């Protein structure tokens, strides 16, 4: 069974994000980058499926600048077999559509029974690439999944999809794109052995031309969404610690919620 896992390198969730003045970009120099947490669930699930079936290959595919190689290596160290790195200045600034298009080109040459990825990247928070990729590839998708069972003959899968107030049991034919939600599994840490063997695993690099993308299809040019500007979120008005003994403060707060805030 061939499983492709899409992986993105993103700023650590602890990172302080600063806007580069006069631009629609953030300051990147001071940030620690990690594998997108939701993609880690996808990598882990691919490895578990491979281990359970006792056969198969896990290919990790990611798009990003040079340093994104680290994220791919980490996934190889977890147990991935090989990686494909979509790397080209021309791909920079890609929105969800342009990213999905580039990935779809990269997957044209790869045999896959299943494509896994995180439900969203924690930098742009779009939650769109996996779904858009499925549409461009002409395969079905199931998004925000907390459980996956693959049929023995790998022609279908049953997933638990998280929706408001419920979990849907969804059946899909394969190949399909399935996006991972927290709770799918607990991702493993790469072992020292894994880290060492990962150094020898192949990472194939592809640029825009190699993917068959024209300049109009790549990066900002190929993007349907343009980021016009970035700003800091509106600051909340200063609040107050209600003084007095906790019991009195509690009574006062209920009064304030009714009379001042008018929310109860």
């Amino acid at each position: 069974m061939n499983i492709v896992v899409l992986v993105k390198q993103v700023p650590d969730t602890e990172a302080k994000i600063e806007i580069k003045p006069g631009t629609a970009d953030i300051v990147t120099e001071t940030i620690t980058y990690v594998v997108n947490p939701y993609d880690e669930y996808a990598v882990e699930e691919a490895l578990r499926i491979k281990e359970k079936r006792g056969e198969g290959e896990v290919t990790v595919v990611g798009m990003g600048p040079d340093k994104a190689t680290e994220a791919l290596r980490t996934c190889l160290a977890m147990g991935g077999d090989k990686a494909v790195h979509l790397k080209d200045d021309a791909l920079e600034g890609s929105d969800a559509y342009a990213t999905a298009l580039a990935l779809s080109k990269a997957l044209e040459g790869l045999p896959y029974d299943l494509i896994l990825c995180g439900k969203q990247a924690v930098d742009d928070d779009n939650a769109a690439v996996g779904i858009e990729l499925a549409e461009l590839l002409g395969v079905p998708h199931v998004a925000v999944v907390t459980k996956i069972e693959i049929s023995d003959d790998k022609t279908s899968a049953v997933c638990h999809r998280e929706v408001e107030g419920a979990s849907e049991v969804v059946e899909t034919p394969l190949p399909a794109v399935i996006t991972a939600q927290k709770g799918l599994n607990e991702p493993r840490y790469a072992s020292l052995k894994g880290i060492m063997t990962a150094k020898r695993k192949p990472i194939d690099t592809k640029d825009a031309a190699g993917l068959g993308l024209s300049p109009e299809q790549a990066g900002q040019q190929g993007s349907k969404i343009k980021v016009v500007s970035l700003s800091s979120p509106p600051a909340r008005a200063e609040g107050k610690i209600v003084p007095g003994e906790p019991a009195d403060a509690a009574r006062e707060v209920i009064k304030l919620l009714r009379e001042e805030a008018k929310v109860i």
Partner: protein
Amino acid sequence: MANGVLVFAEQREGKFRKVALEAVSEGKRLADKIGAELSAAVIGSGVENIGGLLGAYGAAKVYVVDDAALDNYAPDGYAKALTRIVKDTEPTILLMGCTSTGRDLGAKMAARLATGLAADCTALDIKDGKLVATRPMYAGKVMAEVTCPDSMPQIATIRPNVFSVEEPDKTKSAEVIKVAAEMSPDELRTRVREVIKAAGGAVDLTEAQIIVSGGRGMGGAEQFKVLEELAAVLGAAVGASRSAVDAGWRDHQFQVGQTGKTVSPVLYIACGISGAIQHLAGMKTSKVIVAVNKDPEAPIFKVADYGIVGDLFEVVPILSEEAKKLLAEQ
């Protein structure tokens, strides 16, 4: 006459979700700004008769696709139905709520129509006839203003509980247009076999107007009872921080924060929650925040409108008692 605004008005079990009415209301405001008409799309099973309700919220036309195969949201069926309506009406803007359905359908439509999607928007405006959407990035640490300059429709999903619902005007009515479904079984590749309702979750956190939330300070699953009591008095939902969920005290469905749900209730009461950045990411757009924590230095107090430094097990029962008295007075 400019191409109009189309709103996918999500319904569940024959009733419009609140965010659908928010989207229709906002759609009307945008349509008025560009001097165009507002239409709505209603898709599902047994929904023939609810389309007309949207006239009161400003829709001039409501397109209804009704088919047994569409009773639960699944991408293929809904995308096929909505694409048909989009092709017929050629809207310049397509809006929907940023719900589990909206996130899914919005992205699929964007790829199908080779257009842009602005997801989880907290503000929308028109500049030079084009949609300008404000949306959070980096878990809300940065707000981005985005546009979809060259392709149509400009698709946007709106965050629930942020936009207001217009007072319905019962004198206004919409033209309801039935659109044939034409769904063949092999086109509908994924299938919802079963829906397992979450325990203790009648109201989804993202739709709750009031949320009472517990964190590490709760100390255990049993201890959430005191929050449940306050929630019952206020008609609130109960949420939890990541600490509480990871400790196994509450289900992940109820986690508020970066790797949980993003909520925007009118009132958020945080009990025994320190206020880590990742938690704030999930609730800092709440209208009013109350924090109860033993530690006066807890970061949560920086975002709280009203803070109480004290033992939540002493404070919360008093909040319940006082709230009960107050609400009984009405």
